[in-house]
């Protein structure tokens, strides 16, 4: 009993202090603040009911003990009492339902957006696409976990944002209404930024909709995680959002549009083997190493080794085929949907020239494009 009381006191203190480690975060948006207030409101109602009910129980346990000489009364019903404790909770519930409904209605007001971003869950990363009015996208990129395997396996000290850091965060402007269209490519994921006060499931075949306005004085980095079990690396696909001042965001977006031109040019370029190896190692580390392992040994029998494998040392056509189209019934995804020809070329080249693999071919982006055309 003492622990219980201590636990409750702790919870109360937490509520009072608003400590991040103990309580829900207030967050930064109007909605997240409303949700926090609602949460605290219900919490205090529960505390009060708890004090009354448990108080009566403990009173009885102390005073109505046989050891204290208590003699049992005979009563076993009271219609008045029973009506009272059916009606009172009903009124309390109405008092909770009313503000809850208001907040929910506000959350569903998704119209009037300034910017629409498609959030697409993949095993095990997020893709962000900035959509124009016709739902076309010029700027799209993946956001992958940046925490190194060495930190996860305890070979290096864990960094400040352990498991909550990505190679490229989602960037949004403050002070504008950003609408998120949330979906998934493979299994169900869930996109959650606690400081924005909502999470939405990312479901294949379904577009879910939600929104956020980050106030102008709240620019900064906000972190969350995938919150629907999505397979092996469910715990390793963080959500990181960088809410930027409007002018910075606009400048960044213009720059991304330019980079897009550069990327398109790369598709027709011829790279040196060294360039391919360097680029390939980076792609491999991000997309392949979690299953096939950095040393190419895989985790047989579920994730086969690439080092010395028939695919990675045999005909290149087969190798390109499996990387582009995946292998059904296994965890091997169709990377043709996720990477461009330059990245595919680099990673295939890397796999065919790493560890003990040493084929005599060089894979260029045009080889990949040619293969895809067949």
């Amino acid at each position, binding site marked *: 009993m003492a622990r219980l009381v201590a636990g409750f006191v702790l919870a109360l203190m937490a509520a009072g202090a608003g400590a991040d480690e103990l309580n829900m975060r207030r967050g930064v948006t109007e909605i997240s603040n409303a949700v926090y207030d609602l949460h605290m409101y219900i919490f205090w109602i529960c505390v009060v009911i708890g004090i009354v009910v448990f108080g009566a129980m403990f009173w009885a346990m102390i005073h109505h*003990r046989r050891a204290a000489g208590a003699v049992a009364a005979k009563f*076993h019903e009271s219609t008045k009492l029973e009506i009272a*404790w059916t009606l009172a909770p009903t009124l309390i519930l109405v008092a909770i339902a009313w503000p809850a409904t208001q907040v929910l209605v506000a959350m569903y007001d998704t119209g009037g957006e300034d910017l629409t971003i498609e959030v697409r869950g993949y095993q095990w990363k997020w893709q962000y696409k900035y959509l124009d009015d016709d739902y076309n996208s010029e700027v799209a990129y993946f956001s992958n976990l940046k925490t190194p395997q060495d*930190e996860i396996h305890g070979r290096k000290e864990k960094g400040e944002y*352990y498991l909550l850091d990505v190679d490229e965060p989602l960037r949004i402007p403050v002070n504008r209404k950003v609408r998120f269209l949330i979906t998934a490519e493979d299994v169900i994921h869930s996109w959650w930024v606690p400081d924005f006060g909502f999470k939405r499931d990312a*479901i294949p075949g*379904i577009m879910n909709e939600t929104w956020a306005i980050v106030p102008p004085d709240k620019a900064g980095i906000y972190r969350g995680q995938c*919150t629907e079990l999505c397979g092996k690396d469910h715990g390793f696909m963080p959500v990181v959002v960088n809410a930027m001042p409007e002018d910075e965001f606009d400048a960044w977006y213009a720059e991304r549009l330019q980079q897009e031109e550069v990327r398109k040019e790369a598709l027709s370029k011829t790279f040196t083997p060294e360039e391919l190896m360097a680029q390939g190692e980076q792609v491999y580390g991000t997309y392949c190493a979690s299953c096939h392992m950095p040393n190419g040994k895989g985790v047989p029998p579920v994730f086969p080794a690439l080092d010395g494998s028939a695919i990675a040392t045999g005909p290149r056509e087969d190798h390109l085929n499996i990387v582009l189209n995946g292998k059904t019934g296994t965890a091997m995804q169709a990377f043709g949907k996720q990477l461009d020809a330059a990245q595919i070329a680099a990673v295939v080249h890397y796999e065919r020239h790493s560890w003990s693999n040493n084929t005599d071919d060089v894979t260029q982006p045009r080889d990949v494009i040619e293969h895809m055309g067949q």
Partner: protein
Amino acid sequence: MSEVVVAGHDDHHDHGPDKGLARWLFTTNHKDIGTLYLWFSFLMFLIGGVLALVIRAELFQPGLQFVEPGFFNQMTTNHGLIMVFGAIMPGFVGLANWLVPMMVGAPDMALPRMNNLSFWILPFAFTLLISTLFMDAGGPNFGWTFYAPLSTTYAPETVTYFIFGVHMMGASSIMGSINIIATILNMRAPGMTLMKMPLFVWTWLITAYLLLAVMPVLAGAVTMMLFDIHFGTSFFNAAGGGDPVMFQHIFWFFGHPEVYIMILPAFGVVSQIIPTFSRKPLFGYDSMVYATASIAFLSFIVWAHHMFTVGMPLAGQLFFMYATMLIAIPTGVKVFNWVSTMWRGSMSFETPMLFAIAFVILFTIGGFSGLMLAITPADYQYHDTYFVVAHFHYVLVPGALFSIIAAVYYWLPKWCGRMYDESLGKLHFWLSFIGVNVTFFPQHFSGLAGMPRRIPDYALQFADFNMISSIGAFIFGFSQVFFLYIVIKTIRSGKPATDRVWEGAHGLEWTLPSPAPYHSFTHPPKVTDAEAHS
């Protein structure tokens, strides 16, 4: 009076149990089958507990120390499946087998041979399920809720074993519930009218109807999965025109009543124990029955509160929020009734009473977090975090499980004719009570601070609470091994128990000798007011 009953049947063959293994394989005796269910439940509880300790060991510190993420997912999945379908449900069926016939004054269950079958399916079902953990592809790893398409298109090959395992468990549950309904409705002793039945019998009657209604739904869900996986259908595959969200609707249409299947019999147990040790009749018997029935009805119209984040329309969200909040009313009535039963009683605190009181307090805490979770906008923040893990463990561990343990302490002297050791029982209670709170209370905090459930590794700000939680889990786990020791010690060498066992106990089962004879109430007993609805 039961001596007379036994003597009257000497003209038939010997009614004692068979010798050796045959007794257990071929038995149709409700007491033997109850015993089988209870031991099976305890075995599953230990296996499920070991999986839980693997989980807590991995989560003791941030980083991956003991297991790989894929294996971790197998642990969480099978922990859930084994505890729900292997430990809690068979535990309650075991109690029903032992107690329902004795409480209503029947000689046995209505359908004794089917009773044998419904038990003996279970070891095969669970062997099928657990064997997958030792196969190359690994066991089920998609969570006990097995959401498609993770459990279909992306599942390990062993998912088919899982599907057939679930089919078998479902068949067992359906037969068990038919048997319980048939027994209660047809085999009550004269004078044992429905509104005189002990509350444990009432809650099981309602639970059995819930089982009958929803186990076929579960069977339908896994059959559709089977077809998606092997026969090219697309029930849940968006690429083929199916709908992954429909899976969740079907699953939770089963799943929410399932939650009450695991808690209503617990309400029944506690409603037997609290009056006994308060030496005062149960307060508000009629309203207890109506509240149980209301909860059962509401359980069919609240399922989508498990799915607030899937993106339902506003009207749907509001309906499920309001309907869910309504459950607080009959549940509150129950808690108030228990407190009023204790009020101005003459209480003593033997082990079953301690577990029952802890049940009321800790289940109520789980009810509070349940009310918070019902509030849709707030649920967006709580959903799929450790706050939910804390919530359902508070209603299932110090809820359902504590009630089963309380029931064992309460009725064990009747079953085996020997008293357990009171000081050991109390020690077991305090270890369990401390263990369960140290394990699960901090999970409220880590959930609110943002820790998702079902992750093998976590960000550094969650480290302290996870460490505390893991320590609590090991305390709790090992104190259940101690429980096993106490039970075995009681059966082997406990002091002989009296027939009434507890001075405040009322009910037909206490009119039988201790241990209860192999065949009881072969002639219906007379139901006096003193033995009705305690």
